[in-house]
């Protein structure tokens, strides 16, 4: 399932996939795969992404 919340949060901060990837120490393709729903990140990476984007785990990764 696509993670549109992550994409929206990233775009909200005017960050490209590459910017976010560099900030959390992964490749751009990994961020792209998370947004497309092709990859389930580890909790460590989720926390890293949340801290960088100033969001909580629930806000970005909880499916309703």
């Amino acid at each position, binding site marked *: 399932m696509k993670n549109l919340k992550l994409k929206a949060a990233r775009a909200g901060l005017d960050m490209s996939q590459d910017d976010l990837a560099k900030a959390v*120490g*992964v*490749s751009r*393709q*990994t961020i*792209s*795969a998370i947004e497309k729903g092709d*990859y389930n*990140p*580890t909790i*460590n*990476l989720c926390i890293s992404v949340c801290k960088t984007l100033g969001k909580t785990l629930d806000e970005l990764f909880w499916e309703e």
Partner: protein
Amino acid sequence: MKAYTLGIFVGIVVGLILTAVFLKAINKDGKMKTKYDERQKEARGKAYMYGFYGVVLTNALFLVLSSSYDLGFLGLSLYFIPILVGVIVQVTYSIFHDAYVGLNNNMTRFIVGMTFITAFNLFIGIMAYIHGELFVNRKLQGPFINLLCGGIFLVLSVELAIKKLIDAKAE
């Protein structure tokens, strides 16, 4: 024969030293270890698994073939071909799963290095062919392995270019 064995040993040692220099040169941070993220590590794990199957299957194929045919003409290549098959499987899987180029790789230096290795191996192989040293006493000689390595690096370069095109379209 002893000098030949020593030559191979020295060649392996020089190869290892050159690999270490190459790895240090292609990384932005000057470290020998290439960094990968968690998704890349997962993909590389699978790539090694498929590479291992490649080695086993090629060896099994040679075993079956050797019962019906004389594979002596392959010389040292008989031992290297399964390894090269494993490498090409591992690298191909890694390339198409974004796990070949590491986070700290400098792409320009990486491409220069790949081109140099390809050209170096092809040069040795082609020169041996020109001088008639590729197939001696009905046996493929050492430079044939260089030719194989050069060919493989060429294929891998093409794969990297294709992956780059795919990524550019996806962006």
